[in-house]
């Protein structure tokens, strides 16, 4: 199955600001009681979006002006905490196609890349410019250009960074590594002779 070459993603953005937004906040553990990822999208950021009685709290994802946004904008250390892939799955299933933040927690970054969600990093100042543009006009079209390592919006252009291996995987359509990993199995089998514990 050929994977899409994700060279750029465009759409409207929504700022979910703050640092250290952890994966428990992105998808509370009780929604992980499932044997499939189907339907996780509706629970993204659930406890900060909704009160115990289900009524909406004040949260950007609840604002009419940000409905339909497909680019998530956040702060530093986004996705810290648990390794749950349920977090990027919920983000993707909600409708997000890319994330722009200052930086990311390691496991979250890898999980997202494997799902084909580009996670690009921008400086705080540049994120502030982007947020200002989106807040003043939520219809602002944002282009996350993974190949060119820049984000364009409202006539502005900001540089972004993304780990080389992730950029390569996204733009060349090999972000899901399973095909390549399977090709390596003949070599994997030779390790049984080198590493005794594999035979235990």
């Amino acid at each position, binding site marked *: 199955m050929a994977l899409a070459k994700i060279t750029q993603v465009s759409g409207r953005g929504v700022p979910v600001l*703050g*640092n*250290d937004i*952890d994966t*428990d*906040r992105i998808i*509370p*553990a*009780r929604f*992980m*009681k*499932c*044997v*499939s*990822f189907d339907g996780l999208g509706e629970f993204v950021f659930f*406890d*900060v979006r909704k009160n115990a009685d289900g009524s909406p709290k004040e949260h950007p994802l609840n604002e009419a002006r940000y409905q339909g946004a497909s680019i998530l904008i956040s702060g*530093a*250390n986004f996705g*810290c*905490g*648990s*390794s*749950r*892939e349920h977090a*990027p799955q919920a983000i993707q299933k909600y409708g997000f196609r890319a994330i722009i933040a*200052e*930086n990311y*927690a*390691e*496991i979250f970054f*890898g*999980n997202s890349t*494997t*799902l084909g969600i580009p*996670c690009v990093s921008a400086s705080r100042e540049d994120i502030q410019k982007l947020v200002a543009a989106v807040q003043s006009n939520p219809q602002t079209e944002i282009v996350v250009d993974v190949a060119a390592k820049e984000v364009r919006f409202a006539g502005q252009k900001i540089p972004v*960074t*993304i*780990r*080389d*291996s992730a950029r*390569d*995987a996204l733009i*060349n359509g*090999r972000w899901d*590594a*399973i095909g*390549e*990993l*399977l090709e*390596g*199995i003949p070599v*994997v089998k030779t*390790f049984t002779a*080198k*590493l*005794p*514990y*594999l035979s*235990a």
Partner: protein
Amino acid sequence: MQLPATIGPLDMSPAATATLAHVDNANFRPNLDISMAKSLFEKVWESHTVRKLANGQTQLLIGTHLIHEVTSPQAFGMLRDLKLKVLMPHRTFATVDHIVPTDQFAEPYADPLAQAMMDALRKNCAEFGVTFFDRASGKQGVVHIVGPEQGITQPGTTIACGDSHTSTHGAFGAIAFGIGTTQIRDVLATQTMAIGPLKVRRINVNGKLRPGVYAKDVILHIIRTLGVNGGTGYAYEYGGEVFDRMTMEERMTVCNMSIEGGARVGYVNPDETTFAYLKDRPYSPKGAAWDAAVAGWKAVASDPGCHYDNVVDFRAEDIPPTVTWGINPAQAIAVGENIPDPAKATSVDEKASIEEALAYMKFKANAPIKGTKIDVAFLGSCTNGRLSDFQEVAKYIKGKRVAPGVKALAVPGSQIVALQCAKLGIDQVFRDAGFEWREAGCSMCLAMNPDKLVGDQISASSSNRNFKGRQGSPTGRTLLMSPLMVAAAAIAGSVADAREVFAVAK
């Protein structure tokens, strides 16, 4: 961002911490040291490298794969979709921990979703030929307790598990990664995964810990100093006199929380303590194979003079009994300190994060943490749910009682820990003191089972995360601390200095 070469013990100012706060994910550079001396990380990485992938990542062999019911069912589903098998079922081990109720085991469970996850794991293990440490085996427990207990966790190996606290296994000198579900599929199907190298930070703790200061305090202190994302891009190698003296269970407590400091991997070099722990475990090598294995394990330890990308030094004497007051594990203070004041923050970020935490915790700046009333005391989890955790607390709680109104849970991390405690009469000591003595599981660490906070209850917890809503109530509040501090809080009814409650000589 370049970190300072060393961070002295006094360099704990918010400013120093703030400068460590941001490590750019994009800035990964493998160390290409050409000298002969190598770190354990480099040696294990090299011995498990299958090949380079087109995007520059490494196809890394994962020798041991641990799975549990929460993150694996979708991975087995993907295998079925792709018509793939498990490549090395004999190197894949399963247990059930997150969703099991700790007070009743008769199936079906009251929660049909939990039962569905249990059924899925049982079915997947049977279908794909994976060993399942089910409750009937007597070996069930929290995955990060079961692996070491069975001798599955060994030095010089690579381990992966769909759980961020997989770093625990680094206590044995293994390189152990927490992974997502798609990667679980990759490891099931190919016994490998795609990953880039990490830098290595050596963390030295020299000197002698003061009485009443535990491994939990050591790691909370490290995270407080280096920040929740100070370790992004790094493997943490822990060493120095304090680690040399630690038991395996203490090393596991520290390595367990590496991820809370942003480090995906944490490890301690294997030594005689490691070998003694592993001798005669069910999956440990036997006879001549044991001697050969030990020789290999000795050789895999970091060489003297090897290169580290960064070195941080701590003095054991500077580490106090530590308690978190906020909503991430770095928001921690000594039990005698006051809750921080946003007005004294040295950066915009620090001010915002203190304000956010104070608002959520409903705490006042500058108030002492000591004396904060608690509703629940939780002793257990992959961080502090091992025999020695209960043994240590049992020494002090005899003749004492949990304060009225406090719900105190003691939850052994595995069926074997429970059995050991029962043999030693430790379970009865806890019951006599007013604790509910439960059966093995993750329990209140993450609230995927009936053990949950209610409303805005405050929990004194020996677990690893104090995120908003972590213990099951969207407004619940968690204070992380060592097991003895949890016991002290349970007995006092409020956060207390265990050294005072139990007359530990300071």
